[in-house]
């Protein structure tokens, strides 16, 4: 049932379903930029319908056992394989308890039916500026592991995402997993998102605070306000300084709303986004400091 419009059909391609990572890498090597990886397909199939991409080869990685890995090790952290879905992350107890910002982002990303298919790795590989996966990952200092036939490399998520739908990935390469460092006890994190009507965030924000130790560690990461997620470094500095926490939070929120470059688009003006940055930062930090 195509109604004669490309929107309802997909361009022609050959489907491959490798059973091992090696086999997948060989296909990627062979077809180069003619190939696209298919994980949950929620992004890729929608993009293909709109002819934003038209790969001649689609490589489904869901049959590769080692990409299903979801594992936490004390001291080492969390490993999330490339085919782990949002729904699987949502029901993984460690994430709910230790990685609150990621948990909250996962719960707010699209809807529970989409989350049964969508993967976190697919989410960051899509690199759409308003998606919810990147800010918490950047706040935790997460890295992606990338493999090709002859190389393995690790890149911080913050650098992996280069701009709108632009990532640090060469033809022949695949992202195998995301590695998130362990969080020290006493550290707190959270995520908030402001959206109206649709699930597109106008602003989303992940915060990570580790204030107990000698060395204070604070990260504030904003999405949807610029071509790629950004940290509010000046605001982070304010939060790391000495003083009454409530006063610091207000100054940091005001600073964040001023220091960042912010876009204006059909969804929201620059002014409105700056206002949202201030309010969301204030609310989230207050909740993190006062709650629990």
């Amino acid at each position: 049932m195509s109604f004669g419009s490309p929107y309802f059909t997909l361009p022609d391609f050959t489907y491959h379903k490798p059973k091992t990572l090696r086999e997948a890498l060989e296909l990627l090597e062979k077809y180069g930029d003619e190939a696209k990886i298919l994980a949950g397909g929620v992004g890729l199939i929608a993009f293909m319908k709109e002819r934003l991409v038209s790969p001649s080869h689609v490589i489904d990685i869901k049959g590769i056992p080692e990409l299903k890995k979801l594992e936490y090790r004390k001291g080492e952290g969390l490993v999330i394989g490339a085919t782990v879905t949002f729904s699987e992350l949502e029901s993984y107890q460690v994430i709910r308890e230790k990685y609150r910002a990621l948990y909250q982002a996962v719960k707010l990303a699209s809807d529970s039916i989409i989350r049964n298919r969508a993967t976190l790795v697919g989410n960051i590989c899509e690199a759409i500026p308003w998606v919810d996966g990147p800010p918490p990952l950047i706040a935790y200092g997460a890295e992606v592991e990338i493999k090709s036939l002859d190389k393995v490399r690790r890149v911080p998520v913050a650098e992996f995402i280069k701009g709108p739908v632009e990532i640090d990935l060469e033809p022949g390469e695949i992202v195998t997993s995301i590695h998130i460092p362990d969080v020290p006890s006493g550290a707190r994190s959270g995520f908030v998102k402001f959206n109206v009507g649709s699930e597109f965030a106008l602003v989303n924000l992940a915060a990570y605070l580790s204030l107990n130790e000698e060395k204070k560690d604070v990260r504030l990461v904003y999405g949807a306000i610029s071509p790629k997620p950004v940290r509010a470094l000046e605001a982070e500095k304010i939060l790391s300084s000495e003083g009454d926490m409530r006063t610091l939070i207000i100054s940091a929120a005001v600073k964040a709303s001023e220091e960042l470059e912010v876009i204006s688009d059909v969804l929201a003006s620059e002014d409105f986004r700056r206002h949202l940055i201030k309010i969301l930062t204030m609310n989230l930090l207050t909740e993190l400091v006062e709650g629990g």
Partner: protein
Amino acid sequence: MVRKISLTVNGYRKTVEVKDNELLIDVLRDKLKIKGVKAACWRGECGLCTVLLNGEPVKSCLVLAVEVDGSEIVTVEGLSRDGELTPIQKAFIEHGALQCGFCTPAFVLASHQLLLENPNPTEEEIKEKLSGILCRCGTYYEIIEAIKSASKFYQKK
């Protein structure tokens, strides 16, 4: 490329010839004539094409037919047994939980699965599990009431 896939649909084994670029929604509706799977937005927003894939609700407009080779699919047509409607279907009728009825197959299917997994859901849990399905008539209140009232039948199992 054209290939043969085998799947179980509503309890029946089927073998179908599909092209690599064919969507699951099209194969179900056009080749297997299962019209309870509704087509509306085609981009994963409205959820009317929801089917159970190995027991999990998924939106079939964003799934390739070749991906489900060897899988089990249930649509609204597969719920009733020997002509007897399931408790959730009866509850939808009793509560008038539909107006035009176009979203009903998806809502019935997703709520049936929700109640199997969680026979006593809170209103929040119901809303969260069903937020991916849209009812343009706005019958959400009655849908939620229907699910709450059907839940007692699932608890007994």
